[in-house]
């Protein structure tokens, strides 16, 4: 069978405890928003709340805002003080979103029982039955301005200096210019120390020098007879200086 259907959602669904209908919740606590809000026409209810954008006057943003209940199934608008009410909603479970082009609001899930009892909780799509209570009537605070834009790479001095090419050029320069001034070369003891360290740095005398090998290779076959024995890595580094 070539058909290799996979159902990765399965384990997800298994995780979500099967609650027959999440809005038939049983907790009977009477919080501030647990009051029954009945409306003239029977089993239609009102979802109420308030949206706040910290630091911004409401009249500057409410005209561009909308309250969407479960996509565009029900639509509400914001009052001039930022409060809202979505009328004419039957019982059920809905995701409420405040939509503005410039500010970001987190969605909230509101459950309405057939008797009109309301409860708000965090939206969790992975575990739809998980309940983390939120205040009702809703208090939705903008979590900041929407960030639509990527930061452009700006050209700064630090970027230039931290560039590896620049580092490679500047650091040796610094060493060449500054080191002789820092280290007193007239001091005999120091001289000895440097000599020693240079000896340590110098290549292993047993290994052939690469540059030498190459020159030999290009100079032709006449030197080939001397190959091997000609390696004389005994030139002390101090002498080279």
């Amino acid at each position, binding site marked *: 069978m070539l058909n290799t259907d996979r159902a990765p959602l399965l384990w997800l669904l298994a995780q979500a405890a099967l609650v027959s209908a999440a809005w038939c919740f049983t907790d009977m606590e009477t919080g501030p928003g647990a009051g029954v809000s009945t409306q003239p*026409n029977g089993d239609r209810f009102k979802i109420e709340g308030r949206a706040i954008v910290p630091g911004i006057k409401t009249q500057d943003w409410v005209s561009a805002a909308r309250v969407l209940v*479960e996509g565009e199934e029900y639509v509400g608008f914001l009052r001039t003080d930022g409060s809202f009410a979505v*009328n004419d909603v039957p019982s059920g479970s809905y995701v409420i979103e405040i939509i503005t*082009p410039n500010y970001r609001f987190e969605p909230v899930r509101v459950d309405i029982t057939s008797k009109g009892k309301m409860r708000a909780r965090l*939206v969790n799509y*992975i575990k*739809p039955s998980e309940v983390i209570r939120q205040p009702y009537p809703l208090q939705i605070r903008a979590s900041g301005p929407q960030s639509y834009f990527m930061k452009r790479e700006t050209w700064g001095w630090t970027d230039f200096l931290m560039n590896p090419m620049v580092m490679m050029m500047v650091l040796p320069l610094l060493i060449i210019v500054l080191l002789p001034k820092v280290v007193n070369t007239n001091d005999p003891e120091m001289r000895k120390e440097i000599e020693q360290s240079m000896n340590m740095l110098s290549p292993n005398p047993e290994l052939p020098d690469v540059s030498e090998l190459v020159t030999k290779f290009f100079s032709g076959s006449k030197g080939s007879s001397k190959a091997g024995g000609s390696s004389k890595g005994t030139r002390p580094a101090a002498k080279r200086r």
Partner: protein
Amino acid sequence: MAKLILLCLNYMILRSTVEAVFEDQVGKFDWRQQYVGKVRFSSFDTHAQSSKKVLLATESNVFAALNTRTGDLFWRHVDKTGPEGNIDALLQHGQDAVLVVGDGRLLRSWEINVGGLNWEILLDSGSFQSACLVGQQDNVKHVAVLKKTVISLHYLSNGHQKWIENLPESETVDYQAVYSDGNGEVYAMGVVPHSHITIVVYSVEDGEIIKQVSVEAPWLSNIQTSCAVIGPGMLTCMDPATVSLYMLDLHLESEMTQIPLQALGLEVTPGFHPVLVSTQPNPARQPLSEFFLQLGPEQYLLLQLNNGQIVTLRDFKPAMLASFATAGEKTVAAVMSPKNKTACSINLFNAETGRRLLDTTLIYNLDPNGGKPEKLYVQAFLKKDDSVGYRVMVQTEDHALAFLQQPGRVMWTREEALSDVVTMEMVDLPLTGTQAELEGEFGKKADGLMSMVMKRLSSQLILLQAWIAHLWKLFYDARKPRSQVKNEVTIENLSRDEFNLQKMMVMVTASGKLFGIDSKTGNKDTGLATLHVFNPIFGKKSHITPPALPQPILQSLLLPLMDQDYAKVLLLVDDQYKVSAFPSTKNVLQQLQEMASSIFFYLVDSSQGRLSGYRLRTDLSTELIWEVVIPTEVQKIVSIKGKRPNEHVHSQGRVMGDRSVLYKYLNPNLLAVVTESTDLHQERSFVGILLIDGVTGRIIHEAVQRKARGPVHVVHSENWVVYEYWSTKSRRNEFSVIELYEGMELYNSTVFSSLDRPHAPQVLQQSYIFPSSISTMEATLTEKGITSRHLLIGLPSGGILSLPKMFLDPRRPEIVTEQSREENLIPYAPELIIRTEWFINYNQTVSRVRGIYTAPSGLESTCLVVAYGLDIYQTRVYPSKQFDVLKDDY
């Protein structure tokens, strides 16, 4: 689990540069046009002298305030579509605008300066009839709403109901109008058709019935279309049968008095239903005694009621439109009359005397491609010398609005037909003469070195010439004042640019108006009003006559054949399954006959759930070769998606982690058929998807998503199908992706034939949670298909999300292995994340996005995108960044 999410997040951060807009690119390549729809009610904000607002309530359920100086939106509120958001009435008082919404479901009051809601209340059920503002002692404090069986009075300040009363005898009486003139009474007027009028007078204070009158009126059937209240409470009705006016004093109990129009020396155009237009500038006072009577399509009369006598103040003939306007205490009448074939003139008249006001002529030029003027909205204002000045807003039949001021300067126009685009197409702009010359040089075979050199030199010379001409034009234009530089549509400014990034967008709107829009600037070109042949660039009708269509057309197909003018051949299939070609020249028919045996097409009858495949015979008749029937009692076909004919797939397969190749199943004839169950119970509903080969009818794959319902959005491209549905069980939106592969070997790597494919493809599928509902979906498209694909998803919030297809890949592993990492697969995470950085339209939201159109440009990295709905938004996207373009800062 947490680890997985963390890993996924890591990937996201790594890949966060997939696509986003830079802030300095705002408005550089993109533009948005915002619309409101066809205007139903309009009202000028008159409470402040300097106000620049006009309120519009439209048939698209939008309530908006426009700036009268520029035509731009101050604010706009988009309600739910359909009858629930329908705006029934607009009443304006001071800074408040009261709307009745959804057949009397809601009463809303808006603060028009801020654009915020004052209050919203739910009204009692019952279908809405009429509403009016109710004033007392020059103070307007209430609004009365008349429904089929009840009348209610609400406070303007908070919407609270003051009283509600059942209408007497509402089973027999059809109450249609409500009226108040500031004397503490509200009049509900109803009619028993062809019998009598019933008038019920309520007290504003407590809703008590003060009196109830029935008056014989066997000729009347509808109050709203034939009656108006004039002057001191005279209900005046027009009876077209006897050609006479009937008048009834609402304050007295009396009979209706009949005034034959003949006695006034007036004549009605035969077959025309005369219309009465009155005006009540202040709802707390009585209406004016002057009114318009329209006697024919082009005749208006200004009449006055003077002590029970009707006096003709002025006869306007010919007059197309007439309307009242009030500034301060002065009321004027504006009348539009035809001037010549291409222009109309509008004049102001004193409403009380009928005298023409001096220096008030305004010339309105008719657009030869537009519709006739339909409505006239007048904004009157008092000038410093206390005379009346005015501006007008003219609405035409093609939903366009034009705002004019004296002596005829068009301040702005709005093409509201574009709020309802049905379909669109992007057309490449033509090459100019010089460009064609240059192209020709490369196209021809070499004919000698010398002539090549000469040709190159001459073409370079032409280029130099064009450049100098361009410079000269720039210099010349710079000296002219800006307003005079007109955007003329010429071959010069409508020619192809270097990378074919500028195109002509041809949009078909629901109003029947056709638009050509320049994708670079958003400038509208020309409008035009079955099968039409036209030039897509200039909008001129082609000289080729379209064939007469005697039979209804079932299907039209564009064939890859071309005639001698490089026009592609259109095949039309009528309901007798006969095929006709257009253009049907000899050359085309000959080509068709040769090709006939390899032309297959399919027809869908979703009402019977039947999919049938046909083959063309050489004599252009058809032959049924397969049929698939989906039982309609269980499920119905909701959509069928084939692949786009201009789509290119660059790579035949995918390189796996172990360096082997997994070949894609690239069947160009594959159809994705989406079905929804007829049973909508949340436990039993399902969504099905069938992949059918359109040539052979072979069912390649079938998938069913249980406990799911539509609306289903599908994108079908390359070797994959992505669809989105609503999961009724978990109450969330889910995406599912199906990918088809041939396997590790290709059966026939040179040509794909549906008839010769013995092996069934491998099918991989994976599903994801999507944290929002979606409005529409489309995939990006590029010239050669090298660039990675993105899905463009229109969200109800107005954002257009560009989601990399990489996230919808059924090979995303649940456990990360060395190989999957090698292949750059993202570990599986159940939830897809919406990042606002992926919104291609940043804060330029597109309301009610209904369709997204993608077109390739000349640059492989760039895809042109147009999103349309209530608004239109055009931009470019770079799914793999601009790999073939130097950086801006280079």
